[in-house]
């Protein structure tokens, strides 16, 4: 079985979010970059578990990014991918990125394409569905469990207020979230091995962009907290009812 795992580079979850160039660019000064947590903790680790259960499984990683993505790709290889492909482009339009991934996926005839449910920077939840449509494959989003029986996948996905269990045949595109797998840390053998694993850099295929980022805004600052004494919590209830009018 061949699995393609999509890997995005995102700022660390603790990164301070500020912008430059008249609020048109993310300020990356001093920002640590990581593998998008949904891509790493859930989709990549679940792919590795599938490989551990069936040693013939091949895992390819794909990233659309510039050379500064290479450290996070090496880390993903250290966790357990077999080889990686980086499409050399800094374009951040979802359709453009999905077009690049779909082109590679089509060529590689993968049985499974895994993405995270979203990236923690642009939060667009778009790549998996777009790739599926470009490949004319079924897509199951928000997966929290994934099991395989031959070529039939059973996927539990989150829905509003509960869970839904789906069945579909491979090939399939799945977007992954918490529950799929547990976070892992690369071991020394993995880190050493990752250095010699293939990381192929290819130039992008021609594709359109559907959107551009005009500018960024930061949310307005809070006016400040109104503290109520712990001896009189009833006052908090009164304020919420009469002043904030929230219940």
């Amino acid at each position, binding site marked *: 079985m061949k699995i393609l795992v999509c890997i995005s580079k995102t700022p660390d979850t603790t990164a301070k979010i500020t912008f430059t160039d008249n609020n048109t660019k993310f300020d990356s000064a001093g920002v640590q970059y990581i593998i998008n947590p949904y891509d790493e903790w859930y989709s990549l680790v679940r792919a590795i578990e599938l490989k551990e259960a069936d040693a013939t499984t091949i895992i390819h990683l794909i990233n659309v990014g510039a050379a500064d993505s290479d450290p996070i790709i090496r880390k993903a290889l250290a966790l357990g991918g077999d080889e990686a492909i980086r499409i050399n482009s800094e374009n951040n339009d979802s359709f453009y990125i999905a077009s690049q991934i779909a082109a590679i996926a089509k060529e590689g005839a993968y049985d499974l394409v895994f993405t995270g449910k979203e990236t923690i920077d642009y939060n667009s939840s778009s790549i998996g*569905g777009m790739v599926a*449509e470009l490949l004319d494959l079924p897509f199951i*989003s928000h997966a929290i469990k994934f099991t395989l029986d031959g070529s039939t996948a059973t996927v539990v996905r989150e829905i*509003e207020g509960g*869970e839904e269990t789906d069945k579909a045949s491979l090939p399939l595109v799945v977007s992954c979230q*918490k529950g799929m797998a547990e976070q892992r840390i690369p071991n020394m053998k993995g880190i050493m091995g990752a250095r010699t694993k293939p990381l192929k850099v290819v130039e992008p295929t021609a594709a359109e962009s*559907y959107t551009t980022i005009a500018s*960024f805004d930061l949310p307005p600052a809070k006016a400040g*907290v109104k503290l109520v004494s712990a001896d009189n919590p*009833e006052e908090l209830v009164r304020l919420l009812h009469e002043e904030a009018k929230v219940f």
Partner: protein
Amino acid sequence: MVLVFIDQQDGHIKKTSFEAASYAAAVANILGSTAEAILLGTVGDDVASLGNYGITKVHTVANESLNNFDAQVYAKLITLAAQNADVVVFSNNTTGKAIAPRLSVRLKAGLVSGAAALPTIDNGFTVKKTVFSGKAFANITVTTAKKIIALNPNSFTVKTTGGTAEVVALDAAIDTAKVQVVSTDLVKGEVPLGEADIVVSGGRGLKGPENWGMITDLAHLLGAATACSRPVADIHWRPHHEHVGQTGLAIAPNLYIAVGISGAIQHLAGVNRSKTIVVINKDPEAPFFKAADYGIVGDAFEVMPKIIEAVRKLKA
């Protein structure tokens, strides 16, 4: 024409769909156009009443096979209804997130998912969306002829206008689903977290799952959903689907009550769009107080029973 996808579950239109319908009507107003809707599958609700949210026409495919959700089948049908649409609106929930990207490809329409406001059209078609998990907004300009917007739940105030929509059956062939829904397991009697107006949330300060009664009691009194911080979900005190924050669910209720949560930056990212934030924590240095509107510096075990009693009296 602006087309809105009406999402249903268990034979009922989802609350977030009314919000999306109202938003679509407002977008139509900006464009000097009309708002229509598409509803797939069978529902017990009165579909024509979508007119009350500004919808003039509802396209339906009332076929039971569509109660089985397959984004691929849905996207194809919505494409047919969207032939004359300038903008297609979804709620940015698990259904919308599964269909909208597919539709974006089919219609060659740029998608803004996680929209937080109405579009502006004076300098290109631009929509404000949440980015960096709620820590910032991006203004996204869509450069394609057709546009798709997936609206964040609880981001737009529903306006009722009165009126009845015309209901028309969309004549379309339905593909065989490649995804079979085997079972659906809904947490009965509880408010879905993403749609809740009020959310009561607990953190490690509650010391153990056996103390969650104070969270659920207050939630029941307020008709609220319950949530938790990441550590609490990680150590399995509470189910994963309750985890709000950067790597969990991002929510924007009218009222968010955080009990025993310090307010790490990752947690704040998921809840800082809440309209009113209340923090109860015994540590006066807890960072959450800086993001809060109201707060009590005190021991939850002493404060919460009094709050619950006061709410009980108020609701009686």
